[in-house]
């Protein structure tokens, strides 16, 4: 019998809230975090995409001025979200060294990112060209490396079991749950800080995603641009932010009297080996296989699942296969699932999205409410799902909520949470 893994702390800093409470409130009210981008570079380069979902800055008492100079913006968001989750989990000290309840060598980190320190790298290139190599900051490499966020969280909380970095594009944040689950089940760690972060709204990334026709160009109506499952969707909206969750063995959580939000009952992971960007479809496609692994690893029946936080990015090609994968994996039970596409509000946080959506899926269970999917005016007829447009009550009793993420490269990850 493998160890049960539970959720004991939540953290988020997103385009729709400075913390978990604000993000959840916005997600119930249907608040959009998408805005017109006002930065000079939007005009300088005459970018065809001029919208994005920016995150608030972490408060200085969470990430100090000096610390901020040594962290990429994505690292600052990582530390902020992890700090909220740590505090929420009720540990007595600021870190594992000062908290009696957790052994630092039994505390792990699995913190994902899609790209890593893209701002740091590109700022360094600008500095190099303008001022020469001498002016390139000595902290450039530690700040740009993709494992920087996991490392920063590990140092912040004195997590010494391990600090791993799932890097699977937009699936990274959900893959962190998978890794955290297995770190605890295998006995490697008792507590794992899992999460994901991204801060990559830069003219280069906008230009690059735009070149592949991935982004919405609904520049005149920013708040209506991210519209998963709608017939008029024309691409995703780049967002930034971070989510973090404290996972803990049930035994460990009970021993310290922690509040338990939910059980991380199962998780799934798969690779398509199909196409670099187009998702695999059908019964044996990667998304359907990841969904089935999540069920099997959590002893979950399709009928148990009442809520899905969908990947649903609002791209013309991406949203339809997800609906097909859900039906392939769950059969007609999918008709009883309330499906929410919260990227309609947050935009797409890339490597941070799965972490934030995991937080929202847990809250959907505890609050028994499925959050909104805004901008769904005409549902694509190929998407045969019960999509929640305005926040809706979920049934009482035992249930499972899942969160899906599918990334460029054919990476698929699923996290399945069971009510406690």
């Amino acid at each position, binding site marked *: 019998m493998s160890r049960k893994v539970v959720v004991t702390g939540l953290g988020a800093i997103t385009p729709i809230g400075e913390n978990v409470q604000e993000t959840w409130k916005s997600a119930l009210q249907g608040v959009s975090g998408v805005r017109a981008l006002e930065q000079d570079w939007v005009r300088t380069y005459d970018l065809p995409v001029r919208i994005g979902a920016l995150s608030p800055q972490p408060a200085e008492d969470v990430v100090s001025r*000096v610390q901020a100079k040594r962290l990429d913006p994505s690292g600052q968001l990582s530390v902020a979200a992890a700090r909220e989750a740590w505090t929420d989990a009720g540990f007595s000290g600021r870190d594992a060294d000062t908290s009696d309840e957790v052994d630092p060598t039994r505390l792990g980190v699995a913190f994902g990112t899609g790209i890593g320190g893209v701002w740091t790298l590109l700022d360094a290139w600008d500095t190099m060209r303008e001022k020469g190599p*001498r002016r390139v*900051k000595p902290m450039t490499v530690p700040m740009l490396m993709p494992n920087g966020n996991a490392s920063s969280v590990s140092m912040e909380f004195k997590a010494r079991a391990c600090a791993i970095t799932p890097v699977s594009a937009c699936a990274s944040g959900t893959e962190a749950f998978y890794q955290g689950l297995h770190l605890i089940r295998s006995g490697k760690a008792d507590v794992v800080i899992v999460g994901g972060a991204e801060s990559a709204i830069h003219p280069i990334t906008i230009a690059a995603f735009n070149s592949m026709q991935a982004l919405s160009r609904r520049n005149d109506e920013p708040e209506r641009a991210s519209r998963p499952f709608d017939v008029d969707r024309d691409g995703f909206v780049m967002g930034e932010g971070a989510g973090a969750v404290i996972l803990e063995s049930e035994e460990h959580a009970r021993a310290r009297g922690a509040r338990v939000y939910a059980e991380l009952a199962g998780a799934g992971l798969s690779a398509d080996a199909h196409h670099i960007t187009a998702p695999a479809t059908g019964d044996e496609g990667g998304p359907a296989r990841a969904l089935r692994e999540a069920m099997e690893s959590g002893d979950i029946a399709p009928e148990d699942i009442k809520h899905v936080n969908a990947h649903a990015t609002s791209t013309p090609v991406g949203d339809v296969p997800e609906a097909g994968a859900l039906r392939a994996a769950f059969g007609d039970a999918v008709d009883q699932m309330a499906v929410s596409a919260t990227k309609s509000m947050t935009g797409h946080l890339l490597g941070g999205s799965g972490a934030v959506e995991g937080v929202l899926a847990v809250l959907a269970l505890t609050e028994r409410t499925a959050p909104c999917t805004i901008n769904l005016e005409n549902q694509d007829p190929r998407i045969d799902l019960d999509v929640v447009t305005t926040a809706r009550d979920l049934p009482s009793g035992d249930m499972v909520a899942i969160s899906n993420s599918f990334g460029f490269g054919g990476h698929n990850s699923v996290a399945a949470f069971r009510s406690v």
Partner: protein
Amino acid sequence: MASKEEILAGLAEIVNEETGLETDAVQLDKSFTEDLDIDSISMMTIVVNAEEKFDVTIPDEEVKNLKTVEDAVNFIDNAQA
């Protein structure tokens, strides 16, 4: 040309910006590593910022000789001349 007092004050500001240490803590007799707990990465940042501020060049091989704040003030003072 900055006076030695101005160099010390300027260095203290750079150290504060990089490490958060109070400017008052940056005294001539303090060792960067032993007293101010400045690691090699921060030291390089401080050196590069000092080069920019005082318009001098501090060669990499010289940095290891700048053990105390006074060493740095004297080096910058001489380099300006």
